[in-house]
């Protein structure tokens, strides 16, 4: 069974939503396997439900929410460092200059 702190919103999803903040060093249970949490995962963030190859669609709510920019291992944090929109780039304060350079 899968961890109760991880929410799958649709059976097709390959990411799970963290519904109680997880601290580094804790372990989560993914399809019966224990996986260590490498860094703090705040409430609302996503982890990979399975191994996801680079270029594959990330599925949440049963629909694609973008593509993996690198290979992602099961249990790994899925966010702006490895997931990219298929529509519009995601703006972040830290990368403001490069964001507008790429336009």
């Amino acid at each position, binding site marked *: 069974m899968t961890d109760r702190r991880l929410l799958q919103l649709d059976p097709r999803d390959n990411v799970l939503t963290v*519904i109680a903040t997880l601290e580094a060093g804790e372990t989560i249970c993914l399809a019966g396997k224990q996986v260590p949490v490498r860094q703090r995962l705040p409430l*609302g963030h*996503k982890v990979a439900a399975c191994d996801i190859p680079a270029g594959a669609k990330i599925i949440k709510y049963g629909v*694609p929410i973008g593509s993996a920019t690198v290979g992602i291992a099961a249990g790994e944090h899925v966010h702006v460092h490895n997931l990219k*929109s298929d529509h519009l780039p*995601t703006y972040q304060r830290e990368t403001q200059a490069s964001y507008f350079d790429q336009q």
Partner: protein
Amino acid sequence: MKGYLRPDGRKGVRNVLVVAYLVECARHVAHQIAWPFRDRQAHLIGFGGCYPNAYALQMMKRLCTHPNVGGVLLVSLGCESFNRAELAQHVGATGRPVHTVVIQESGGTTKSIAAGRQWVETVLTQLQASPRADLTVRELVVGAICGGSDATSGITANPAIGRAFDLLVEAGATAIFEETGELIGCEQVMAERAARPELRPELIAAVAKAARHYATLGHGSFAPGNAEGGLTTIEEKSMGAYSKSGRSPIMGLIKPGDVPPPGGLYLLDVVPDGEVRFGFANINDTAEIAELIASGSHLILFSTGRGSVVGSAIAPVIKVCANPETYRRMTEDMDVNAGRILEGQATLEEVGQEVFARVLRTAAGERTASETIGHQEFTLTYKTFEPLGPACLPAAGNL
């Protein structure tokens, strides 16, 4: 519940007097006029631009004759482009008391403030005698918006608002959801819910227009806080935002200031038509709330995960907090704690019912958190819209 019966037959859930500046140069005077009466339902609205804009004039006409509004004071500098005579005539034709203070003709700042306050005092006293009439759920128009979203918004508060929307529509009310820029990626799913086949391409086209608009400007409807809260892409944010529309059929597509026919669910398209001219479609949540109100919303359901604090002029805002950690940090700003769903303390159905009940109590006069604290935000920008296409609204005979 009882509403405030206006001379034009519409019924409001609040008894507001608006003080409206017609150019930024008149805002200080207008603000000074309204400020002493802020706890007596005198609200400041206005348009800051000096150049004419058909959208801004239409918005101000709709806002100044909103069912929650009982009287209107216009504050003009005197030389701006805004057609103050047309607006005053429009308001007067609905039977609402209206008066214009022109600062350049009234002896400057101090005399204008004094004259304005005197008028407001008199009319607020008159409004205390506004007639009351029975108000049914069928007569309510409710808008929904999400702001300060995080990844909990699309799991708890937005679906709970969607459930409340379903209950409102079943009871015969009108429900409006918005922000086509936050529906990018779910347009096909949404179009399946169109009440008429000819509406489907209109819904898809509205989202495609939003995608083009934001691509031209180089920025999606996505703030850094969204990412800090666990949202990674606009598609992901869209799917969460979309869930606040519930499951009812979509009866039509409207633009800001279009008041939909009574009953059913409508999508409000806030993205300007034509070439990109004036900038972002939604510079902030407050601009969208003003558009929902201009389309007749008596009150607004506002879903937030990161923790927005805004309220609004003219219409009460009910804050549904998606994130239990945010709720504990910012309890005074929130009306409903939808984060209980994540902690196993309530079901989605229960929170949906709670939001529905809260709508009815607010319509009956109960103050929301933002009203109690004194929030009365308002923003109005430049935009350009074309008239609705024939497929956007139900045929008159089918209403």
